[in-house]
């Protein structure tokens, strides 16, 4: 099967600062791939090069079998792009915006069906300017999928959503992925990546620091677990171990059953992510600043 996205040795500099500094990436057909990284990490630059909005300095890029630099309208007919923010549609209705967008695609989906798929049937004839942030983002996604794309780009789709809107949105993306659309998603939210993505890439300072399934990212699955408990005197103990089950069994034997206040934790995706990007942050994190203040 064709690889929808193939990138190798991608580089892009703004003046002297390297925004993308040698990225390799292959995204497979039907996959949901999440690109994570702090602001200024090179996520948007990478994605915009793939979308054909930016020129690259070096490297090989193939998107749906074509070089985005030279690909034409026939290529765009197979893509769906949901930009980071889109405004300018305030005075039209979702139905109007979708109807005119559908006309430019050769394999456009039925407008009413798309409106229903994004859950906007009640709002189809309201001005987009009157919709909530989450509803507007649904319009953006509807515009991105109305052409039945083989590959969908989603740039920070749920920024500013309330938790319920985010959950609903995730269901929408999962249903798209279920129908075989390849999706490249950028996000700040680790729970979002964990929930939606088949694989996750972490970018910082223009480089791909880690690339794996959410469960295995950065050696998460095999890394040591932290076991904590209290002894009879109420003193808290913490032990990091690669064999937590064995330790818990020993503790259970020692306590003759229940171990007081026992916890076993592995690093969350967030812990792994933060430790991956920590060396690449220009500014200290909030915690470090606080420590400085109190020290």
């Amino acid at each position, binding site marked *: 099967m064709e690889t929808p996205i193939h990138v190798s040795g991608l580089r892009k500099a703004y003046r002297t600062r390297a925004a993308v500094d040698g990225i390799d990436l292959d995204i497979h057909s039907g996959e949901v791939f999440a690109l994570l990284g702090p602001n200024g990490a090179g996520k948007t630059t990478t994605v915009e090069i793939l979308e054909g909005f930016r020129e690259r300095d070096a490297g090989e890029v193939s998107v749906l079998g074509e070089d985005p630099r030279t690909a034409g*309208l026939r290529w765009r007919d197979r893509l769906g792009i949901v930009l980071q923010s*889109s405004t300018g*549609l305030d005075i039209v209705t979702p139905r109007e915006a979708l109807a005119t967008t559908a006309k430019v695609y050769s394999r456009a989906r039925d407008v009413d069906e798309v409106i229903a798929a994004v859950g906007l049937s009640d709002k189809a004839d309201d001005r987009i300017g009157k919709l909530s942030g989450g509803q507007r983002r649904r319009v953006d996604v509807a*515009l991105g999928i109305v*052409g039945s794309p083989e590959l969908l780009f989603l740039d920070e789709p749920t920024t500013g959503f309330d938790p319920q809107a985010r959950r609903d949105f995730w269901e929408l993306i999962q249903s798209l992925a279920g129908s075989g659309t390849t999706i490249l998603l950028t996000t700040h939210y680790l729970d979002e990546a964990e929930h939606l993505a088949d694989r996750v890439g972490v970018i910082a300072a223009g480089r791909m620091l880690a690339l794996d399934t959410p469960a295995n990212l950065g050696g998460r699955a095999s890394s040591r677990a932290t076991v904590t408990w209290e002894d009879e005197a109420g003193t808290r103990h913490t032990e990091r171990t690669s064999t937590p089950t064995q330790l818990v069994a020993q503790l259970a034997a020692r306590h003759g059953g229940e171990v007081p206040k026992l916890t076993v934790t592995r690093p969350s995706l967030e812990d792994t992510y933060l430790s991956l990007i920590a060396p690449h942050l220009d500014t200290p994190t909030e915690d470090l600043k606080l420590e400085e203040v109190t020290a």
Partner: protein
Amino acid sequence: MKTLAIGWDRTVLELKMYFREKEAVFFSFAFPIIMLAMFAMIFSDSFGQGDAADAGVNAARFFLPGMVAAGVMLTSFQSMALSVAVERDDGTLKRLRATPMPPVSYFLGKVGLVAITSLAQFLLLIAVARFAFGVQLPSDAGRWVSFVWVFLLGVASGTVLGIAYSSLATSSRSVGAIVIAPALILQFISGVYFAFTDLPDWLKQVASLFPLKWIAQGMRSVFFPDSWQTQEMAGTWEHGRTALVIAAWAVAGLLICARTFRWTKRGTT
């Protein structure tokens, strides 16, 4: 064929958006009509007697050519410069570029919008002039032929120059000042609100560099008595030069558009 069909579809959408935007409707569409009505009422006494009255020119007829010219500039140049700059800033152009829409269709949509709004505006202007203020409209075909080419050239040059000019605005916040201020000054020095003859010579020379002065002059040749051409700078209507200057601006505008038009904001590639 598909390019044309999409262009027409865009025209319909552009028209819907134009008339839903109250500010645009007021400041570019209704403005010349309101100004004509106001001037016609305020200055009705000054045209009651003397040369003007003898020649059959009342206040409304005196201001009509200027208002028609201002209308051409507002619905073409001003509305294009404003809308394209805002669409570039808010990401509309980028979103359109992300689709397989042929770029020509976008411009066809704009051309369709300008053609329909400027024609509708003109028809309203002469309807108000004729029925509210009793202005005698030209009856000979030759004058209407002049009107057609001045109008078409004016609208075409305004449209391409507006799209070219939109690139000067770096954000939608600055666009109002960058577009409206020069447009307003140009209207004052091009004989739209004042009789062009009342301006100092050097200002007339400056105005002659820009197309609006020539559109206004062309419109005077349509709506004023022929004997009034002696009042013009050259003492004649100068149809040949009028056509040449406006056409030159149209071609220049087209070349600038082709070289400078961007779908994304500056500094984002």
